[in-house]
């Protein structure tokens, strides 16, 4: 099932590129031979032109090459631990799909503006609304489709036996049912979004004053930070089935049976950047430096996440794993 999902996920970019190519061929008779490359804005003279084939070659060829590189990456990461391989493949799939969707849409928007023009000079400018609205939307759609097809559940396998005796425990009664539920708002994201949006607005104002109407394209730098707003929401759920963590639309789920042991670790600023930013959701979902809950998974990989009371949560996970290891009668 997982292989089928990967196959479908990596089939999306060539399907998008193929669709863009077919659309371009359908419009071919209505397009001029060349389009303005430099100049031609606001009545200024055209300095150089580019052929339709050349433009399509760049806009569709680049993601096609990226897709091929992604396929090679898919094969190479197969040597890594299952969890790490899964999240690297997910990252590749999301990146390739987003780039393919973005460049295909930009190409079609440019070509659509030039339909029915006989020469490069007659070709219209792509509308600002299409560039600032449609392109981010297609990128978002591409990211969502690729992420959904990749799935959120880690394929770490099944841990054998109970956690080590030195792991922290939370005493549980035999029949007791337990769950950890945590929800919070990440204020740093609020601050970052406000700062970026204000900077974008200032930049747009400067661009409009200096470059005229094309400067409105700078509105993208106000809109894009808004897409980060869902990332302010953080949720952590631990129960007898799984550990689920979610930052906005990004979620991870680790089956409890995949957890070898849980511990509390102190994440410093450099680790936070490495685990939280560079490694992405595959290695951790840590909001800020400080104490964090660390899961050692059956395939040997680690996963870090923020928790208000990491010691209690770690004890809870280890004690529930003890129950699982003791047999289903106690669960």
């Amino acid at each position, binding site marked *: 099932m997982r292989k089928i999902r990967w196959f479908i996920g990596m089939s999306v970019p060539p399907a998008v590129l193929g669709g863009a190519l077919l659309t371009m061929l359908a419009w071919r008779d209505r397009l001029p031979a060349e389009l303005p490359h430099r100049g031609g804005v606001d009545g200024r003279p055209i300095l150089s032109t580019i052929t339709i084939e050349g433009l399509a070659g760049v806009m569709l060829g680049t993601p096609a090459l990226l897709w091929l590189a992604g396929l090679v990456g898919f094969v190479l990461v197969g040597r890594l631990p299952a969890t790490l391989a899964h999240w690297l493949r997910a990252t590749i799939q999301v990146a390739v799909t987003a780039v393919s969707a973005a460049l295909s849409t930009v190409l079609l928007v440019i070509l659509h503006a030039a339909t029915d023009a006989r020469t490069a000079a007659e070709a219209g400018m792509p509308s600002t609304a299409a560039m600032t609205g449609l392109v981010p939307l297609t990128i978002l759609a591409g990211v969502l489709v690729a992420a959904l097809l990749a799935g959120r559940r880690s394929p770490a396998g099944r841990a054998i036996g109970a956690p080590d005796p030195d792991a922290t425990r939370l005493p549980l009664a035999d029949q007791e049912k337990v769950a950890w539920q945590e929800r919070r708002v990440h204020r740093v994201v609020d601050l970052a979004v406000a700062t970026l949006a204000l900077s974008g607005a200032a930049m747009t104002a400067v661009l409009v004053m200096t470059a005229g109407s094309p400067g409105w394209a700078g509105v993208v730098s106000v809109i894009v930070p808004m897409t980060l707003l869902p990332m302010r929401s953080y949720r952590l759920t631990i129960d*007898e089935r799984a550990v689920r963590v979610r930052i906005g639309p990004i979620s991870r789920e680790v089956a409890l049976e995949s957890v070898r042991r849980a511990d509390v670790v102190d994440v410093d600023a450099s680790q936070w950047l490495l685990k939280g930013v560079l490694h992405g959701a595959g290695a951790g979902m840590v909001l800020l430096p400080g104490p964090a809950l660390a899961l050692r998974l059956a395939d040997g990989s680690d996963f870090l996440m923020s928790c208000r009371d990491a010691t209690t949560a770690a004890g809870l996970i280890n004690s529930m794993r003890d129950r699982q290891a003791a047999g289903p009668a106690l669960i």
Partner: protein
Amino acid sequence: MLFRVDPSSSTPLSDQIAGCVRRGIADGLLTRGDRLPAGRELASSLGVNMHTVLRAYGDLRDEGLIELRPGRGATVTGASPADQARLVETVRELVATARRAGVGREELMSLVDKEFA
């Protein structure tokens, strides 16, 4: 925050869930504006009926600790929710102690009135 319920206990499950939330608020793990898990989600995690969770949330709302709004779920409310939660827990313990000691409602109320005076 940690939710723990024991089906073998004589205390109703909804009271146990409400007690977990009260302790969370009293300990500062939940503050004003924090959202509680959705009833269905918590019920699924704990393996209890959703109506049991909703009954617990209803009790907490009646105590003035949370507010329930359609579409927004349960949110911690009140000017000083931690103090309010501690007060509710203390009153519950007080009543339980009075019952064990054979002290009736009137007698307990007169003791409280005397302390206030």
